[in-house]
């Protein structure tokens, strides 16, 4: 029981930490710092996954943890640094919505996810419940980053943090099968995206493959 409460507190702290770091992402205005924050995000995720692996004594989760650590906390940020350098993307993030409103929206989202999740009856064990609430907030915040940032790299970061939220939820779900496979699949997905950015020389935003320029070609513009 003692153990349980401890485990609960630790995982709770870690999950809360993730949400906090997501918030930090919201108000970053420099690319590099954003990448660093994300690396931190991934690190914390790795920790919490590892902790889950420990408490659920599910060794396969360690794989997920290592993936998170190695791939997301190290490889991807480094790669993105490279890309930023090579493509000469200028360093500050142009955001569609100002920092302030974004923060407020973030608050609202967290509140929403809390409201939704605390409806969950308690016999679905509290650990899961708290965890889910945090995971949902992380997911929503990641999405918020994606839609408020015009910059491709920061959008990728947003997507990855969203996916971190997923992994958090998955690992929080005790005895959930296929977690490893899923995390692997997602890592591949993200790799695709990063490579895509690199290949298509997408400098500023996902859609600098400029849609409006294509409309004449498609004959869709009136």
């Amino acid at each position, binding site marked *: 029981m003692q153990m349980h409460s401890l485990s609960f507190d630790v995982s709770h702290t870690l999950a809360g930490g993730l949400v906090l770091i997501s918030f930090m992402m919201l108000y970053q205005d420099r690319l590099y710092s954003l990448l660093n924050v994300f690396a931190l995000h991934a690190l914390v995720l790795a920790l919490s996954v590892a902790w889950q692996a420990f408490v659920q004594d599910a060794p396969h989760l360690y794989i997920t943890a290592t993936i998170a650590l190695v791939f997301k906390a190290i490889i991807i940020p480094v790669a993105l640094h490279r890309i930023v350098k090579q493509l000469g993307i200028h360093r500050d993030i142009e955001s569609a919505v100002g920092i302030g409103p974004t923060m407020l929206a973030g608050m609202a989202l967290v509140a929403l996810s809390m409201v*939704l*999740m605390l*409806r*969950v*009856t308690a*016999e*679905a*064990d509290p650990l*899961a419940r708290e965890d*889910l609430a945090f*995971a*949902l907030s992380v*997911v929503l915040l990641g*999405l918020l980053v*994606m839609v408020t940032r015009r910059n491709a790299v920061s959008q990728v970061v947003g*997507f990855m943090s*969203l*996916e971190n*939220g*997923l992994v958090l*939820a*998955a690992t929080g*779900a*005790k*005895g*959930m*099968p*296929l977690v490893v*496979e*899923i995390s692997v*699949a997602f890592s591949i*997905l993200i790799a*695709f*995206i990063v490579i*895509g950015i690199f290949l*298509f020389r997408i400098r500023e935003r*996902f*859609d600098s*493959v400029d*849609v409006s320029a*294509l409309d004449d*070609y*498609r*004959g*869709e513009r*009136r």
Partner: protein
Amino acid sequence: MNVLSFDPVAAVLIIPIGSAALLAILPGYRLTARLNVVASLATFLSSLSLFVIARPPPGPYVLVDDLNIVFIVLNTFVGFTTSIFSASYIAHELETGRLTPVYLRFYHAMYQTMMFGMNLAFVSNNIGLMWVAVEIATLTTVLMVGIYRSHAALEAAWKYFILGSVGIAFALFGTILVYMAARPVVGEGQDGMIWTLLIRHAANFDPALLNVAFIFLLLGYGTKVGLAPLHAWLPDAHAEGPTPISAVLSGLLLNVALYALLRFKILLAANPAAIAPGPLMVTMGLVSLVFAAFMLYRRRDIKRLFAYSSIEHMGIIVFAFGMGGPLANFAGLLHMVMHSLTKSAIFYAVGHISQIKGTQRISGIRGLTVTHPALGWCLVTGVVAIAGVPPLGIFMSEFLVVSSTFARQPLLAIVLVFGLLLAFGALTLRLTSVAFGEPRGSTKSAEASYVPMFAHLSLVLIAGIYLPAPLVTWFQHVARLLG
């Protein structure tokens, strides 16, 4: 599987994936195209054998029940006909040099992989596995959409990819939530994801969790169904990819996502405490229908036109399932089957037409019934069918949807009818300009493969007039199963 006991389920999975591997390494266009057809045929036949051979009992991974057998057979059939069409289509692309042999190899491999993914999604009894399968199918189609590597194609593929990935994320989150809801009741591990177990215990799941889960699943899989406003990837993906893929996208992939959605709808409906999934689906369906109907009016690209009409019809189908009840569900199923057949037939015709005319711009195509009677009249029949005019199949389903809805929810029916009329107006407007009037564009004769077109259209025609009794009882059973 050993040779003595032929296992159809294994067949519909192993044949595609095996032939995919084979096609990836085999050189030579003619051989691979033929092999592709043969493989699809084999898959189709083995799926047919599901009717005769006793079904496997629902295991941890595989489930064959009345619901998905319909989907599987439809899937493999359209896959087969499309492979025939694609053979002639791709040949032309090869001549015009839009595709190189290397890409062809890739194309065929991907085609079979996609079929594998979709079949897997259908037969999987495990919601996690289903998720994985849907994603496989999606990613392969992404790759095929971008296969022309033209600026527009890449852009379409990219859009598809990004929006798709977000959809993937949502679907996964929803799946996890369902597991979480199931775990206290069903127990940890594998069981928490086996649909047959889930449905058995769904009544005791935590409703709040289920609700959130369903929202995420609706959006996640809905993105792939192409429900507005999640549809953005769909028109471009249809327009820029090779036409066989457009046909498969509209005809099959949308169904896969729809199937997933249905599974979870049933799950949610089984839990009295949870929100009713109906209203949500009805709303999204109507929105998609009306929105797509308006979008049809300003389309200049013929493939994009029919892409939007797919959105419209998905809207109708989702609406029907949302309404629920034996009549509406029956109509929904029927509509889905009819739409798959008709829309893919239309895309076959459109593919050949755009190849002949060398353009997808509607303004560049005139008077088809004069220059290419067969193609032209096929297109006319197809469009008339998709617009819901009897004696073709879609009319029957629309009749059932509208009339049954009007008796229950008059206002909804008014909106529905409004949308249908709008869409009808747009489609027929384009049809008259494309099929009639002074011919425009190249008049060179088509070396088209008419067999798939004729097969689909005649099936639609027959279904519009006569549905065989066993099929009907089947559908009715499924409709009841859908609640």
